[in-house]
């Protein structure tokens, strides 16, 4: 049921195993294949409130599997526009499709320049090699 391992080139990564897809002055955030694999099948997603502020490098929510709970770290700062209700209802969506249907929140960027500090797929793969 879980997806095959992949780290798409069209998105950016944070070393705490979170990703951001930048779309103009907005971004969609989620967790990487590595993160969902380490946790196992997700059973719960605790999202932030719509309108909440998320700050780069700090947690904005939690995901839980049977054996672990993990903070979800914001790779980039902004204001929460939308929470992915599909994941709240069916957290395993993240395991099935971590970069597509398994997106967690959509934000309006507060400081677009922060995107430059994110890792590309190659750099993130290097981080994984160190694990």
């Amino acid at each position, binding site marked *: 049921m879980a997806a095959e391992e992949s780290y798409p080139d069209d998105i950016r990564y944070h070393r705490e195993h979170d990703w951001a897809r930048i779309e103009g002055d907005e971004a969609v955030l989620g967790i990487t294949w590595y993160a969902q694999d380490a946790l196992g099948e997700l*059973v*719960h997603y605790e999202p932030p409130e719509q309108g909440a502020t998320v700050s780069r490098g700090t947690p904005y929510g939690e995901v*839980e599997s*049977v054996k672990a709970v993990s903070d979800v770290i914001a790779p980039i700062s902004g204001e929460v526009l939308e929470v992915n209700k599909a994941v709240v209802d069916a957290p395993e969506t993240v395991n099935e499709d971590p970069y597509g249907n398994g997106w967690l929140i959509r934000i309006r960027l507060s400081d677009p320049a922060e995107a430059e500090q994110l890792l590309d797929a190659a750099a993130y793969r290097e981080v994984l090699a160190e694990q």
Partner: protein
Amino acid sequence: MKLIFERSREGRRAATVPRPDGLARAEAPQELRRRRPPRLPEIPENEIVRHFTKLTTRNFGIDTGFYPLGSCTMKYNPRVNERVAALPGFRDLHPLQDEEGSQGALELMVELQEILAEVTGLDAVSLQPAAGSQGELTGLMLMRAYFADRGEGDRRRKIVVADTAHGTNPASVTMAGYELVKVDTDKRGNIDLDDLRAKVDDETAGLMLTNPSTLGLFDEHIEEIARIFHESGGLLYYDGANLNAVCGISRPGDMGFDIVHINLHKTFSQPHGGGGPGGGPIAVRRRLEPYLPVPAVVRDGRRYRLEFDRPKSIGKVRAFTGPFGVFVRSYAFILAWGRELKTMSEDAVLNANYLLARLRDAYELPYDRLCMHEFVLSARNLKREHGITALDVAKRLMDYDFHPPTIYFPLVVPEALMIEPTETETKETLDEFADAMTAIAREAAEDPDVIKSAPHNRPVKRLDEVKAAKRAVVRYRFEDHPDLAAEPTASAATEAPKGV
């Protein structure tokens, strides 16, 4: 197997409540009265007994077989302790009975306090905390009161905890309102002294440590660790979960610890009861005595009494003076050993080292040292070579009629198996267990499927924990009982599928 609610039939009952004739009936006012009765089962007494007896056939205790759960000290629970705890003079004694009417109970408590002080090498004891975790929290509260009294409360915000610690330690730190600082373990299984020195300063209130650690290893630098903390003005807290290794050999007070909690349900044989009760008394250095919970139980010449006048006490962590029934059992247990308590720990350590010697080749040994009363193996070699995990080994052990050891703890060891045999096991039992573990390692290579599909002989096979977490069904839903079984049950009267 049916739930007891599924055995209920309207109009059946077990109890009769006697009621004097002609007694005028008193009732609650209408607005406070129960409208709908609670849906307790309506069931005759023999059915209740059968139901619970059947449940016992689906459960494994120390009485059933070898139960090497690391850090739980699953030793034999002597039955004489149950007999004495049931003496009416203990069992039916009200905690608010006058002191004149409870001298026997108070004397027992004072004697137990004195014994625990001697065993831990400390000065004053409170028996009040209900379990080890509560003992930890009480100890941290004591620290807070002590430092507040010295005007250092605001400054000292941090508690240092080893990365191998039980999860209770960091959880207690948070509940006590402290900040957590983690310190690493080095390759020999000791606390990394350099890391420790970097993390201890005048904002540190203290250290929480268990010694031997959850790796079953005695920290060789304990004297230096104590020095580091005491020089910075901090206190040392000893998690007594592993006390079974060192009774009569080394005392936490002599190691430098200032506050100790003892798990009466581990070292001192209070039966575990399926998850409790326990007892978590704490022992402290004299200078911390004023902060202990109230009431204190004290000897006053030849009488015993409760002392409430302790102005610096942190207050109360539990009702009355603590779980007295637990004290009776532990006291009786200690009387059986007396000053020979050291033999208990020696045999515990001998049994563990013997198993270690027998298993070190079939599994990976993360720390190549003599162990104390428990040791940790890794099943990483089996995972790497055959895809067999610690979980798989645990399930297969059930087929050999053993309770598995603790798995996946401590976190610093991957595929961890934490094994604590205790002293109440014969060499034959240890050999049988070692043979089973070795056989499973062989099966991993020759027949991994039999391991993956284990257990085979239990009332259930491997259970879906994901389903239980996602859609938590935590009570019997009378209104619709959504049976999660694959085949729907036609009604409450039908037996569950597959005749379990």
